[in-house]
């Protein structure tokens, strides 16, 4: 059986960089059983030829967990994690420039009693600052191997693996508890005392602290410039999502059209051609086309996270979040939710306070996620003229307004929740603001690659299968839509949704749209393609809708999707994160009510104004 070796360390010690450097492209991401905390793992071969499994545990400040992701790390180390083997060897990653604070965590980890290797990371930065650390003395004092590393430059990696191999050999014999590990985990102040004693012996000369981060913060955290920079940054991100993505999106669209033409040459007109061309290509194609936008959005979010700017944004936003009973930390999951509510809800696990965390989870789906983009983009292209108003594009303005409505509603919902269901004292803000650093391009590319694969897997599984099911159900028992199960469901739902201006086709699209919001666009494409609008493929769906829908209906549809509760992944992740059906139930209920009311009001107001 392969030995399990786990990386552990304080947040911002460079743990993930070391993991990336050690594993490269072999790494995989999954979730820990029962929770949505991501589990990064990869096979690694040691210098002596043995294969091990390397695991990257979530960062934690101590083994006394305060938030759900810290709990996973502690449980894993203690061997309490159900369905997960206890690691055989630990690698504790330490920031050499912050040894004064990280050393007490090493002492705590050592007392766990597992074989331990310490990676003294960012060693080059400590040396550059003039800090001289006696590595041998540190190793002697701790009684474990200490290896200087520079993860971003791939230095010291072989030595870490050699030390692990040495530990492995020892583990094969009986494991003797380290002499100082008397009575398990002790009080944090005892560790601090011990750490100070060791530091006096191993720090040969204290370096001068770099002030680069402080100087950047002078501007970035400035009361006026700081807010202006944040606003400009957000504006740039949303602009880039649209303008940069245009060329690759056209390319993907053309690709799918060519594929359809090729199919129509290859297959005779009939059921099979209809399934492949109208069902699969029109459906899946209209979703895959949004891959470039999603990659660009995630690129910026990864960049903000890894450079250290995200915590500065949280700092600037803290008092605004405080107005609705949250703190600045909640800004980070909410910003990620603009890409997708699922990772957003998952990253809420870094919030210690359960009420704050619940509130954040409940409002995360109101942030306009990238899955709504296909819906917005199609409707806006079909109904909003591409003219400009005072030099600002009307289409872009409508899109911006939809984002703003989402954010404002989220704040209102949070305000209400904090006074009702999640009432309680506000959680204080206590947040480390890491040094600024330029992340290795490699790490960003890995992150993007993983996100792109997840998105394409969704397109290949959930979206593809909903498209096929929709196509089949719209062909049985009768030959056409009017005499099919889908048609009947559509007619049935139309009774409920007619008062808010939805036609049968919209009602049909809402059902498979449960699988994922963007599927609604695919479904509309398919339904209109089946109804005989010959060219209802991704691109020209815009034309079809333009003729088939009234403006009030289109606006009501947009309003619906600001709140639309449909997304099985969000509901599922909320269930897992909150441990039951209560909160996902409340989430679905309030979002459905807001969507219905929002669409209804929009429809009737638009109808009255437009005659």
């Amino acid at each position, binding site marked *: 059986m392969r030995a399990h070796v786990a990386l552990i360390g304080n947040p911002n010690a460079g743990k993930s960089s070391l993991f990336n450097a050690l594993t490269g492209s072999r790494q995989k991401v999954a979730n820990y059983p029962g929770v949505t905390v991501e589990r990064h793992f990869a096979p690694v071969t040691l210098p002596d030829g043995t294969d091990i499994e390397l695991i990257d545990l979530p960062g934690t*400040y*101590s083994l*006394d967990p*305060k938030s759900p992701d810290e709990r996973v790390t502690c449980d894993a180390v203690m061997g309490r994690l159900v369905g997960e083997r206890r690691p055989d060897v630990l690698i504790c990653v330490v920031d050499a*420039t*912050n040894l*004064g*604070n990280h050393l007490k965590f090493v002492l705590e980890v050592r007392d766990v009693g597992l074989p331990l290797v310490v990676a003294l990371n960012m060693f080059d930065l400590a040396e550059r600052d003039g800090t001289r650390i006696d590595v041998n003395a540190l190793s002697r004092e701790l009684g474990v191997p200490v290896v200087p590393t520079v993860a971003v430059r791939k230095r010291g990696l072989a030595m870490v693996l050699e030390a692990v191999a040495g530990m492995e050999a020892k583990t094969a014999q009986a494991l003797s508890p380290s002499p100082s590990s008397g009575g398990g985990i002790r*009080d*944090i*102040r005892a560790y*601090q005392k011990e750490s100070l004693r060791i530091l006096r012996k191993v720090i040969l000369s204290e370096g001068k*602290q770099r002030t680069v*981060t*402080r100087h950047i*913060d*002078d501007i970035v*955290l400035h*009361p*006026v410039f*700081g*807010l202006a920079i944040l606003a400009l940054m957000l504006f740039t991100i949303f602009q880039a999502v649209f303008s940069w993505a245009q060329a690759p999106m056209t390319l993907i669209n053309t690709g799918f059209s060519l594929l359809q033409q090729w199919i129509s040459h290859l297959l005779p007109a009939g059921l099979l051609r209809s399934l492949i061309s109208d069902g699969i290509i029109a459906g899946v194609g209209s979703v895959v086309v949004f891959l470039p936008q999603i990659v660009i959005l995630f690129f910026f979010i990864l960049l903000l996270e890894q450079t250290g700017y995200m*915590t500065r944004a*949280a*700092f*600037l936003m*803290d*008092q*605004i979040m*405080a107005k609705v009973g949250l*703190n*600045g930390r909640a800004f980070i999951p909410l910003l990620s939710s603009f890409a997708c509510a699922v990772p957003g809800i998952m990253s809420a696990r870094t919030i*210690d306070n359960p009420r704050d965390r619940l509130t954040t989870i409940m409002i995360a789906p109101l942030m306009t996620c990238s899955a709504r983009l296909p819906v917005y983009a199609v409707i806006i292209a079909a109904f909003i003229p591409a003219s400009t108003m005072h030099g600002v594009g009307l289409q872009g303005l409508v899109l911006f307004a939809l984002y703003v409505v989402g954010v404002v509603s989220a704040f209102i919902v949070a305000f209400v929740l904090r006074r009702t269901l999640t009432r309680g004292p506000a959680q*204080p*803000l*206590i*947040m*480390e*603001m*890491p040094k600024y650093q330029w992340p290795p391009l490699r790490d960003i590319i890995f992150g993007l690659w993983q996100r792109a694969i997840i998105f394409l897997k969704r397109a290949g599984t959930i979206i593809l299968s909903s498209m096929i099911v929709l196509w089949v159900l719209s062909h049985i028992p009768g030959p056409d839509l009017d005499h099919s199960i889908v048609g009947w469901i559509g007619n049935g739902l139309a009774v409920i949704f007619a008062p808010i201006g939805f036609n049968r086709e919209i009602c049909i699209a809402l059902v498979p749209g449960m699988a994922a919001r963007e599927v609604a666009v695919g479904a509309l494409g398919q339904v209109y393609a089946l109804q005989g609008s010959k060219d209802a493929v991704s691109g020209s769906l815009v034309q079809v809708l333009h003729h088939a829908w009234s403006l009030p209906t289109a606006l009501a549809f947009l309003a619906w999707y600001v709140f639309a509760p449909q997304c099985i992944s969000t509901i599922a992740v909320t269930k897992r994160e909150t441990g039951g059906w209560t909160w996902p139930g409340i989430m679905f209920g309030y979002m459905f009510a807001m969507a219905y009311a929002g669409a209804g009001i929009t429809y009737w107001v638009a109808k009255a104004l437009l005659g």
Partner: protein
Amino acid sequence: MSGVFEPGAMPVVVSLAQLKSRQAAHVYGIDGDPATDTDIQRLLELGFHNGTPVCILHRGPFGGNPLSVQIGAMVVALRKAEASRIHVETVA
């Protein structure tokens, strides 16, 4: 830590929230019981131990909240409410 102060200057104990920006100080104590109060545990984990050098670097844009605080080699964001529970020793 004594090197921080001018010889002859009288050290005083105030709350961290009362410090001026960039005024040098060191941690003197925190209100509350670290055994039960998780906020204090978190502060200790982040390095707010007695004797550690501390100073306020930046103030947030709305009402001077939150504060960015240099503690040892780290920077930590805190609100004034939490900062007022931390006692620091400085020269007036």
